[in-house]
């Protein structure tokens, strides 16, 4: 399953929570928001094969 974060693509297996997927790709769940199929969701959502998953960094601007 493909996850997009800051214009980069990451691959994880499906049927895990977004929180676990975030940790697996080396990010901190506190530092990102999860958008699945265009909708903002909490990170306990289980990601399924075919979901379009985007992580939004909460740090921005400057």
């Amino acid at each position, binding site marked *: 399953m493909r996850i997009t974060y800051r214009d980069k693509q990451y691959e994880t297996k499906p049927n895990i929570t977004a929180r676990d997927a975030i940790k697996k790709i080396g990010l*901190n769940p506190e530092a990102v928001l999860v958008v699945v199929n265009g909708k903002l969701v909490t990170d306990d959502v289980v990601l399924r094969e075919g979901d379009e998953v985007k992580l939004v960094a909460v740090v921005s601007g400057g």
Partner: protein
Amino acid sequence: MRCRKCGERAVINMRHHKLALCGEHYVEWFAAQTERAIEKYAMFSREERVLVAVSGGKDSLALWDVLLRLGYQADGLYIALGINAPIPYSDVSLEKAQKFVANGNWRVTKEDALPAPRPTLHVVDIAATYGKTIPEIARAKMRGQGRPCAACGLTKRYVMNRLALEQGYAVLATGHNLDDEIAVLFQNTLHWQMGYLARQAPVLPASREGLVKKVKPLCRFYERETATYALVRGIDYIYDECPHATGNLTNFYKTLLNQLETESPGAKLSFYLEFLRARDEGAFEAFNRTEELHACEVCGQPTSAPGRCAFCRMWDVSR
């Protein structure tokens, strides 16, 4: 996870508040919490004009949006810094700020609400006004050493203060969130910078002539909460960080503090609120020195040393 208020699917789970909310109830909660902070710290009233420092990022646009929706008289100030390499950061962030005003989504849509007047976006172009962009002045003054952040910070503080006073605003509001505040707090605590600790607060009063009152209405929100508000409200903000901020110490401290928060939910909030409590109880009072200020001989703005202020020295402004 479900919204505690209505049972719909939640968009955010705030573990430190043990509270999950859907989009609609989150926006309501965010506005109520903002109002509460404004009142608790006596930041400003609905009769006063507020100038919001707008960067085009999530925090400042979220702040402007929520203030307008709460019925405050809030205008924006965007400072065009000329940071356009390696990405067109300044140009894109200005577009975001202009788009925010133009699309009118900040209007309250309740039928009984009075139609809100269109807010003003003041734009100060640094290169057009002072002859150089921020990267150019930093290169000229620092011989290419280090980041331009010091030159940028000095310039922004000066321009914000000056425009707020000249245009008659009662208060300057910035979009600092709790993560911003505790990153600074952590740094100042690591080095026991007691003077800085004494001056860190949600409100910096206009204690001297020539200094505008500064307030941080979002200082008790986590960064993920302001980002969530911006996304739920459909605010189009710049996702990129300033290219000069990448890898800086503040972001490193934010990363450390988020690791702490992951293991111990509420640690960040507690760190900040307990600091404010200690401050209110006078823990840093002895270090809150009142420096003698002088009027800059060129621009008249307050400065700690006689002669030209740091801004006029850096920009080589003379009479």
